[in-house]
């Protein structure tokens, strides 16, 4: 019993030491069943799913790594992912990163689009938006906002609308993981969920002094 206890102590110390230097290691979800679990997940879909739908369960390196670390990767790995994601950012052909805040305001409120499946898919051509209000506070007048992300109220008022801020804002919406690996925020540009032009409208909604985000 005593020996067992001592052994446990040694083991704990061995595990804990490198942990002090790094983020506390957490067992990857699924533990030793992770590989099996992936197969079970993949085997859970009807064979007659269109190929295009099934691409949505594929994972890129970022998704896979974030899952392993429960969205909290060690800093070094996080930095690698951020670099990888930074390299994906594309800009509108005309190079203009700030669009029309009124269009951006509309996109921020739209939460529909992109639902697939046999039970309740979206009708073809259903408008897709950024659904920003699902997670963020933006214009003061919209009270039905979520809190998964930080409040973006007075975003431009607080940060100004310098070129750097505009570029940062565009990049963040295009690929959130370029700055914070494994953030909850989707990578809207990377997945073509929003076009570069639509992203410029959301940028305007955030930074334009005339936008309701920066009023009141």
């Amino acid at each position, binding site marked *: 019993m005593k020996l067992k206890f001592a052994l446990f102590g040694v083991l704990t110390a061995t595990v804990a030491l490198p942990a002090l230097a790094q983020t506390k290691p957490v067992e990857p*979800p*699924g*533990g*030793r*069943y*992770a590989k*099996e*679990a*992936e197969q*079970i*997940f993949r*085997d*859970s*879909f*009807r064979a007659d*799913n269109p190929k295009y*739908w*099934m691409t*949505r*369960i*594929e*994972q890129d390196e*970022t*998704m896979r790594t*974030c*899952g392993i670390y*429960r*969205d909290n990767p060690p800093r070094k790995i996080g930095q690698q992912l951020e670099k990888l994601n930074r390299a994906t950012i594309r800009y509108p052909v005309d190079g203009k990163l700030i669009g029309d805040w009124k269009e951006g305001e509309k996109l921020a409120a739209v*939460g529909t689009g*992109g*639902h*697939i*499946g*046999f*039970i*309740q898919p979206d009708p073809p051509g259903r408008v897709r938006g950024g659904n920003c*209000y*699902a*997670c963020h506070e933006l214009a003061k007048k*919209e*009270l*039905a*906002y*979520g*809190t*998964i992300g930080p409040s973006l109220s007075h975003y431009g008022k607080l940060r100004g609308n310098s070129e750097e801020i505009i570029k940062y804002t565009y990049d963040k919406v295009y690929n959130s*993981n370029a700055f914070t690996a494994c953030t*909850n*925020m*989707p*990578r809207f540009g990377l*997945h*073509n*969920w929003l076009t570069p032009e639509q992203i410029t409208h959301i940028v305007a909604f955030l930074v334009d002094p005339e936008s309701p985000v920066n009023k009141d």
Partner: protein
Amino acid sequence: MTQGLIRTLVGVAVAATFVGSAVAQDSKVADELAKYREALADGNPADLLEVKGEGLWAEKRGPKNASLEQCDLGLGPGKLDGAYAQLPRYFKDTGRVMDVESRLVHCMMTLQGFTKEQATKNWFSKPGTESDIEALVTFIGAKSNGMKINVPATHPEEARMAKVGEYIFYRRSGPQDFSCAICHGQDGKRIRLQDLGNLTTQEGAGVAMKTWPSYRVSQGAVWTMQRRLIDCMRQARWPEPYYLADSIVALQTYLQKTATGTVMETPGIKR
């Protein structure tokens, strides 16, 4: 005590302001709230389904002209009290971990002689098409009302399924980079005005699991846990798992294990 009361009053006032403004902004929300109140005033519409389920349970049906009264949901043939609260679990006769719906379908096939296709054809109701499974699960669920969720997942197969569920919970994919954990991995968050439970904690998972099956006002129907989780996948913009898929049973095992100890309050009524 007084402080607590003040806090509650402030909380209620803040909540009222939110609801008030949201209603003014969005008449759809107002309609829904009205439906809610109506439903609550008359009692939970799921109660009717529970009665229907009770009838179906005892009725001789199917090619074998048998009732479901000898169905073993894990506590022995015909033992219903507390059965829902201890599912999913491993069943020796099938060699599988099964949730209430997989087991019910198994009984409909073995006892009543239905084919799987017949048994699952209307696994959820649509306007004008009722679902026997919804009624039966509501009835079975209610037989666990007031009892503690008890899925310790001690059998190796159950432990394995709980781990598989955990894996799926954190697995990110799709055009929004979602996983279950994105919305349900933190305390005290909201999506729009909807509160989100932290399903990685006993409390959060308990709140989520104890009220199913639940009448959903926005859908005008009772949803089973299979229906609920398959729709979560839709919301994540993933393809839809098939009914009774192992991935869904695994997620339920993970969630019920986390919620173990929470007292069941079913059928529930939800947005």
